[in-house]
């Protein structure tokens, strides 16, 4: 398969000013390697603070990693500053918050037109492209939606405008950062199905960032589980879900309630406590302090090991 984007041992850290004299480093992403092929979706699953959002932003070069390599279509673009335009045209991102991700002072058609202007699409071609993008995301009748401002739309409609803007340039790589987490449960599937259709149509490589394993299951080919800035388990979606190795992955699977009337009689297998802060992560395995397997682990960080075809896990003991 043709690789679209590769992340090689990416580390993205932030400096936060605590006070005049004190700054702390947040190790949001701390050594992640990942590869997404054409037409494939990789889900990045993790809880808040796991670094999944930062990873997505790093992948589309909205933030700069402090080390590691970013390879896009075979070219190293880690330190590309100028000539970013051709990359921007091919890599897009959709944001979580449908209310803040659209400029309130622009109409729907202006919002979708902007990427076309920036990338020099001739004026006369734009209306038909905008129309097609709106049809793609099923905002119809097109003429009615074109003139609307974001505040006149519902959350789901806004998110569809966001998708239309992202795909209007026909990118080959798309990061979807929790695109449905702020949308009503009953319309989530609608957005995700739409999304899937578009991915197939444009054969995009997609990084789907979510905290929800259940949607990841339906809409991705691979799952990468993140914990404290690192990927702890990676593999084909069904393989990971059916044969989870890392105790954290297992817990994530256990805690998702299915539609089972017996749910109320069982206690879920959840690890007590909360993840440590990425400001001062523990040495070695980040999960050590909470690990239900207990026992002694070596003090070094566990490396990714392949335990089945394409199924990798970073755990000293796990299997």
């Amino acid at each position, binding site marked *: 398969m043709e690789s679209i984007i590769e992340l090689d041992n990416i580390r993205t850290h932030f400096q936060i000013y605590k006070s005049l004299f004190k700054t702390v480093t947040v190790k949001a992403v701390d050594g992640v390697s990942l590869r997404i092929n054409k037409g494939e979706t990789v889900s990045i699953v993790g809880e808040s603070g796991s670094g999944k959002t930062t990873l997505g932003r790093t992948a589309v070069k*909205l933030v700069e990693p402090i080390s590691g390599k970013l390879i896009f279509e075979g070219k190293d673009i880690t330190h590309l500053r100028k000539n970013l335009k051709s990359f921007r045209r091919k890599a897009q*991102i959709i944001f979580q918050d449908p209310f803040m991700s659209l400029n309130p002072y622009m109409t729907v058609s202006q919002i979708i037109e902007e990427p076309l202007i920036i990338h020099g699409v001739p004026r006369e071609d734009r209306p038909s492209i905008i129309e097609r993008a709106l049809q793609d995301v099923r905002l119809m009748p097109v003429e009615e939606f074109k003139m609307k401002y974001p505040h006149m739309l519902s959350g789901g409609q806004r998110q569809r405008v966001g998708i239309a803007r992202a795909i209007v340039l026909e990118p080959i790589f798309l990061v979807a950062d929790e695109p449905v987490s702020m949308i009503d449960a009953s319309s989530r599937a609608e957005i995700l199905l739409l999304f899937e259709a578009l991915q197939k149509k444009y054969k995009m490589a997609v990084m789907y960032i979510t905290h929800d394993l259940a949607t990841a299951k339906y809409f991705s080919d691979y799952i990468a589980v993140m914990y404290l800035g690192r990927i702890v388990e990676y593999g084909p979606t069904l393989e990971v879900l059916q044969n989870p190795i890392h105790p954290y992955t297992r817990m994530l699977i256990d805690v998702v309630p299915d539609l089972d009337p017996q749910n109320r009689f069982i206690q879920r297998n959840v690890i007590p406590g909360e993840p440590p802060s990425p400001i001062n992560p523990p040495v070695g395995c980040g999960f050590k302090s909470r690990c239900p397997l207990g026992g002694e682990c070596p003090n070094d960080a566990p490396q990714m090991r392949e335990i089945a075809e394409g199924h990798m896990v970073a755990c000293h003991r796990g299997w």
Partner: protein
Amino acid sequence: MSLFLREALREFWRGSLSKLGVIFLSIVIIVSFYTTTTMPLDYGTRFWSNPVFWVNNPKAAPPEWVNTFVSPKLLEHKVLSTSLPASVDAVEGSILKRYSVSYKLGVEQFPQFFNLEVSNLTYHEAPPTLILSILKPDGYSIDLYTFIVERPFENESIPFIRYTLEPKRVLLSGEVQVARALSNFISARYGELLSPSQIIDIGYEQIIFGERSALKSFTPLKGTYTLTLTLASRNPNDNIGSCRFILGGQVYGLMGTDLLGRDLFSGLLFGFPVALLIGFATSVITTALGAGLGIMSGYIGGRIDDLIQRFSDIVNNFPQLPLLIFLTFIFGGKLWVIVLVLVAFGWPGLTIIVRSMVLSVKGAPFVESALAVGASRLRIMGRHIFPQVAPFILSQLIFYTPSAILSEAALSFLGLGDPTIPTWGQILEYGFRNGAVYLGYWWWILPPGLLIIYSAITFVFIAMGLEPVVNPRLRRWR
């Protein structure tokens, strides 16, 4: 954008305060326009602070319209002028041209003072003599004052013209000659001998315009007086361009006068454009500076941000008025100094807010998505960040205007205003310093203050009308 603007305007126009504000503002602008076109720009130096210009006005007189409310009625100020002789006689080779006016005293009050002004007098031979006399309603006549026009200079050519630039001005109430004339009149009329100093004690106007009720006390004599200025000369072509008889009243004009006799109405009128200028100049410069620095600080970030932030934080914590006083005192109260000093202390507040707004907008997903699409910095600034802060900046511009007007008024009130330009604050300062409040000169205190409030509240109303436009949480979209 245009649709947005239309919607914003509709939102603005919905509030009743904004309508009131717009009406008020139109009035301020119309009056300012009228003033600047009809009054000279150097009105302050040429007229307002020139005491001679106001010498014919009554001092500290309330406005004329108070007569509607008080009784007995107060005497109105009268300026009677004539330029054509009422009669011409030839007596013993002299030509007597009589210029006369009649003055009707209708209330039980004496005129405050009596002035005579002669301008553009022309003579051809010997200097003529001018005689001022008055015919009282009871038939008695008094020759009050006589003087001879200055003789020609060397090499002066005929005709000799006098009193062109400045009129010949006789303040009769201060002339000793008048006292003598009145002393004569009293001995002739009442057979009483009074010394000139006793005459001064009684008051010239009392004797001229009154009737004796006791030894040294006079009551006003109502009726019509004829005031005559006689030009006695050799040549029939000699004449007076115009002569004016000023009979000081107790009330004056629309707004009354101050202690120097200045017509407060004209001063108040001139205050309009000045207030507008100070308000707008200060707020425009302040907002431009404050918003510019705020946007720069927020958008560029890094060391420049640090620097601007620290600096604005410190200046923002300055106690304003003491430093305003100090700086205007040291640099002198010129209008531009006041404006600059107000700007110097006004910008940081806006900078701090705009910076934080820019920061929050800068991190907003819609800016990030524009970045992700590949938008240039310029495009992000112009298309995404600036429109977010622009309405706020506009409303701050309007909100800062009244505070500039009020600050200038306060400085003026402390005596630090620009002495060459009359402002409402200065009128109040002069009034306060001369005890207007202790003497109850309300017409000197109320109107300037009310005008300051009026001009300030105009902008407050507009700013409040803009509030729902600027603050999206108050917006009622559907």
